[in-house]
């Protein structure tokens, strides 16, 4: 990777990304559902996606580190029977 030297004192950095992921199954079968992610205590949706109907897998790229906590909601059909996962962390 090329390294751009701005000066001896400047620091080059970039957004730190990580992936949170999961698999949605209903009665053992993969299912396509809306996935909503919230970061820390923010009540606004941070990111969203939809799990694959083929294998139930979903992934969301987030910006953060081990100090961040995410809340992930797997929205059930018609909004019912949603699953909520609190304090989801990234490496």
């Amino acid at each position, binding site marked *: *990777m*090329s*390294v*751009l030297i*701005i*000066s001896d*004192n*400047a*620091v*080059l*950095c*970039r*957004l*730190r990304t990580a992936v949170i992921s999961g698999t949605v199954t209903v009665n053992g079968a993969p299912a396509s559902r809306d996935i909503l992610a919230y*970061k*820390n*205590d923010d009540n606004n949706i941070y990111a969203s996606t939809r799990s694959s109907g083929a294998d139930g897998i979903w992934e969301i790229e987030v*910006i*953060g*580190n081990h*100090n*961040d906590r995410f809340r992930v909601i797997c929205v059930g059909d018609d909004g019912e029977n949603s699953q909520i996962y609190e304090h989801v962390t990234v490496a």
Partner: protein
Amino acid sequence: MPYANLVQQPCADKSELFCRLRDFICKRAGTYDYSASGIGWTLHDASYASGNENAPALNDWFVVFSPGERGNEDLFFRFVWVSGYIKIEGWLSWDSTVHTGAHQYNTSYNFYIADAGSYTLWIYGDLDAISMHETTNASYNYRCAFGKLANTGYDDTIAVSSAPVSAGTAVTIQLDMIPPDWSAGDKIYIRDSNGLEIITITSIGSSSIVANVSSSYIAGCKLQKDIGYHCQSSYYNFSMACVANRTTGAVAPCYSINANINGYANPDELNGYRGAVPIHIVAADGYYGQLRHTLLCDNSSMTDGDVLIAQDGTMYRYLQFYTSAYCLVKEV
């Protein structure tokens, strides 16, 4: 002492914020238990009208002390609960027996904390320097930093006199060491818990100097070219008060400088990297030094609370504060 941080801590009210500040900075099991995760300053003195440290209120205060990372600094900071703020004062010394300090170098109200509401508190630091941020309660995020600057303009090595120093002309001062940067004709500070002045080195020996001294100083008094302590006196830009007037050595009035720091680095889109630069404190009467653990950055394509990683693996939290100031604070 390892660097430590308290990240995005909700506080239900100002009392909780006040107690968490104290207990995290002092790494203690107080109202909140930070005996494992806190920074490690010493709780040096405190005053609570109710006598209960768990229920602080208006006008209550506490003093924290640190000898710095190199163990010979005199970093005393008093946190006072005042209306609309937690006021943070820097002091060169503080007597916990009579509850008073000497050589105050910040008198401004500096950490904006409204009296009512809930808060989100961030604290970062080590034994040299601490910064604090509040990101919920007010219209803007607010920030305050204090401690010892890095890369001071002059050598900040401390030499100590084992014997008292009497006022007079051509006084010989025996020191534990002579910093290599010192030369005859140089101006240096001499200070103890009572006095502070600038003296000029008349001549210099292997373990002593000769100088004219206006006041007397106790054994253990410290001499150095640059002290480099600061207490950022504003919630916007990088205004600050710095101990002692560099030109005259006067302690009061101290400088409270509102100088916008230029140096925004344009993001480098190559490989997704962006540039961030150290924050150097420069003011009308000279260069003070560099804020520790903090970088200045541009805000494009950034969201408050984002995490960035440098090429050496160091992580930084992006925190906007006030209207148009953006910084990266080292996070572990």
